[in-house]
């Protein structure tokens, strides 16, 4: 499903959405960045509580469909701008990682 559809159906919030029509084909949850790069697949929704600038680089290089920030984790404005510049979708969930993953699992 599209990132925009996931936001609507799961009740998530858009943080940056430069590519709302991007298709999500799977999901991966994790905070260790190299682990994510080793295990996440292209077009996954990547669920994390990490919020530093390296998240944007990892999302871009690993080519995930979107980053899903669990627990309403906030991002600095500078990081949001970098995400927009690199066309990275970032969405936010108020739930912990496990519940966020369960919610996403209903739709993919």
């Amino acid at each position, binding site marked *: 499903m599209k990132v925009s559809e996931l936001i609507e159906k799961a009740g998530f919030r858009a943080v940056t959405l430069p590519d709302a029509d991007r298709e999500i084909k799977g999901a991966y949850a994790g*905070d*260790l*960045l*190299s*682990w994510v*790069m*080793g295990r996440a697949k*292209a077009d996954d929704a990547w669920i994390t509580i*990490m919020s*530093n*600038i*390296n*998240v944007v*680089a*990892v999302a*871009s*290089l*690993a*080519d995930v469909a979107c980053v899903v920030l669990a627990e309403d984790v906030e991002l600095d404005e500078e990081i949001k701008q970098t995400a927009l510049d*690199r066309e990275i979708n970032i969405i936010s969930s108020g739930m912990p990682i496990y519940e966020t993953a369960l919610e996403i699992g209903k739709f993919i």
Partner: protein
Amino acid sequence: MSDELTFHFDVDGENFTSAGHASVKVKKILRELGLDPETIRKVSIAMYEGEINMVIHAGGGEADVSVDDKGVTIVLKDSGPGIEDIDKAMEEGYSTARDNIRSLGFGAGMGLPNMKRYSDEMNIESEVGKGTTITMKVYF
């Protein structure tokens, strides 16, 4: 692409938050060249892990990327402390990164294993006290 294209980058060892600039630029170049997404992904991740390693362990270094009709070659060269035990460093989960690096989400001991995972060929030349040169090839 009969001619070889080459790109050179200096990797800044001071600024951890800007680590990845060279990899992001390479990703952009490869997209413009029209390479397939999976090749771009493999090159991008392998190079980013190498770049991060140079920032964490070696105070920066140099990256040279070349593209020819067979694939992409990435050479990462630093003048850092070198790798004492390469076999150990290749083990998943083994890391010598400090705690402040781990708090950023790195230092999980997956960098070199990921570089090997995503490259078709990888060669490490390292001398303790002198530095490390890693060559990775990703074929089309």
